[in-house]
Structures are given as C-alpha cells and as structure tokens.
C-alpha cells in the first residue's frame, strides 16, 4: 500500500490521527490513550498486517516541554511502513505499554525507560537495560548532567 492510501486507511480506523509534517515515511500523531487499541487493529487488519515493531525510540523536545515517542511499524508480508508518534509530558511521561501487542516492545520500552525515563503503564518488568541499576537520571534527556561529563573547552 502506498503512503497516501496507508494514511487514509489508518485515519479511517482512528479519525483523530493527524499527519506529522517533515517525515520521510508516513507518520501519524495519535493520542496516548488510543495507542494500544490502534496498534492491535493495525496488526490484525488483513489489509494492513503490521506484524513487526521495528523499533521504538523517543525524542526529547526540551523547548516544547514534551517527549515524542516513535513507534516504527513494518508489515513484512505487505512490505509497507508506518510510524506512530505519541507526545507525552516531560514531567509525567506516562504511556500504556505495547507489550501485549508486540512482545519485542518489552525490551525496547526498557531501553526508552533507561535513556529517557518514560514510564510504561502495565509493563511487566520495567528495569534499566543498559545502564547500571543504581544510575541516577536519564542520560539522553537534553538537560541531563553528571559529574563524569566533560565540557568541551572553547
């Protein structure tokens, strides 16, 4: 399915999804509460069949005081791609987990928790993945600082 058709098909499932500008593959902004239901339908719909969560990551938009979560979906049998974007508050980054829909999301979400401090509601095992368990802070946030870091001399 090509990009305009894909966007139309997903918007038929989720009418309040809007297209994200400046994306090199079809990207839809969806509200956090609709995420799990929409992902389930995207996976099970015979015309869409998004059976693979390629990756999940986040972007820290410090100026806008929000974290943007990106879910990169791929359909292996149909060969098309879709990105879902969910924005959450920087101070209370709470989203529902996608573990029940895509089991791989368990570790991807652990990584996003490790680096950005995003809290996944109903996640079975939300621990740090790469950093030590006693690490303080979330290093991929733009305002992260610790004693180990060196400033570049001018």
């Amino acid at each position, binding site marked *: 399915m090509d990009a305009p058709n894909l966007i139309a098909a997903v918007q038929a499932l989720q009418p309040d999804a809007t297209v994200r500008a400046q994306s090199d593959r079809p990207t839809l902004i969806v509200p956090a509460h609709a995420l799990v239901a929409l992902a389930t339908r995207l996976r099970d719909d015979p015309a869409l069949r998004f059976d693979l969560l390629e990756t999940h990551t986040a972007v820290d938009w410090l100026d806008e005081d929000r974290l943007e979560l990106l879910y990169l979906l791929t359909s292996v049998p149909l060969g098309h791609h879709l990105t879902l974007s969910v924005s959450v508050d920087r101070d209370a980054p709470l989203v529902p987990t996608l573990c029940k829909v895509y089991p791989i999301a368990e570790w991807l979400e652990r990584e996003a928790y490790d680096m950005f401090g995003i809290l996944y509601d109903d996640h079975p095992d939300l621990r740090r993945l790469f*950093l*030590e368990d006693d690490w303080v802070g979330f*290093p991929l946030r733009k305002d*992260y600082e610790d004693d*180990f*870091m*060196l*400033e*570049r001399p001018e």
Partner: protein
Amino acid sequence: MGVITDNLPGVLEPLPGGSVLVTAVDQLINWSRSNSLWPLTFGTSCCAIEMMMATGAARHDMARFGAEVARPSPRQADLLVIAGTIVKRMAPRLRTLYEQMAEPRYVMATGSCAICGGPFMYHSYTTIRGADEIIPVDVYVPGCPPRPEAFFYGLLTLQKMIREGESIRHPGERRRPVLAALPEGMTLDDIRKEMQDLLSHDANVNMTDAAAEGAHYSAELKDF
C-alpha cells in the same frame, strides 16, 4: 649434537653426557615470546571489525607474525588488543580480563576511543577517556580506526619492545609505553619492506647470523 647446537654456539652449549646449557636465554625467550603472541578474542566496537578484517584476511595476514591464534580464554592469551570504545559498564570486565591473563601480558590500545575516548571525549555520560585509565597499555596505535598498515606497525613495535624488554634478572621491567604512530613520510612500501625484512630475517632462524652472534658470545664467555 644436532643442527641447533652446531649452528648456535653460545646460545646452546652442549655438555658432556648429552645435555645442553642455555646461555643467552633472555634472547631466546624474548624472541619466542615476540613471535608467538596469542591475542585475546576481544573487541568492543568498530575498531574490532576493522582489526578482524585487517588481521584475519589474506592481504595483511597476522599469521605471518605468529599472532594469529586468537584465544577466547584470557588464561591462554598474552596479547590484549583493546579495539573500540570502553564504556563505564565494560571497564570492570576489561579489568577482570586483564587480571585473568597470565604474565607476560601485553596490551595494545588501537584507535582514538581506546587511547583517549576519541569523539566521545566530551559530553559523554559513559565513555572512559582512554583504556589506560583502567589497565596499563604498552603500545598505542592511533587512527579512527587505524589503517591495517598502522595496526601492523603497532604490532611490529610491540615485537621490538618485547625483544628489548624483560630479562631473567629483571622480570617485569618493561620499556615505557610507546606511540606507534606512523613516522612522517613513511609510505606503505616502507612498511611492506620492513615486514618483509622482518619475515625473511626473523621468522626463519638465520643460521649464519646466529652462528656469528653465538661465536661472539662464546668469545666473551672464554674471556670470562
């Protein structure tokens, strides 16, 4: 008494009764150590891939210098090539690997990350700024990543260091760490020539040279 004792007087002296006396033992040991480096199978990032391609493939084969037997166990290895970024979480493991290796053990730090943290020196929450903050390093090989010839220049430097290095009387005494940067104006052909010289002179025991050297030692012993 056989070809070795006949041709290497001074290094191996035959004694009555069929046994031999090894006199220039430091030379012999250092020569064999430098030509049988067993690297540990260890690599942390892109430099490791470069190193594997450079050393394992046909064009720059490391086997020519007796260093191709990569050992997966640190207890059997004596060369640790730090190829890649060392992060906070890797550092204690690297220290453990180093401590598990038996003496004599040698360490080469290849690439910018292993030398100083490289591109991750500033604003990094986790990159160690140089592997020498964790373990002592013998040879530094600069590059990002080092070219194969730079890597081999580092290996040759390490072999030279080992040959000039420890003696039985002073075990554990080493030369200071060296930077094996390619000298200014050195070309690939120069390195090839040096490698070839090394291979033709060294990897095969040159009986004529060794005999001459041995005769020299024998003369010294007689005076003694």
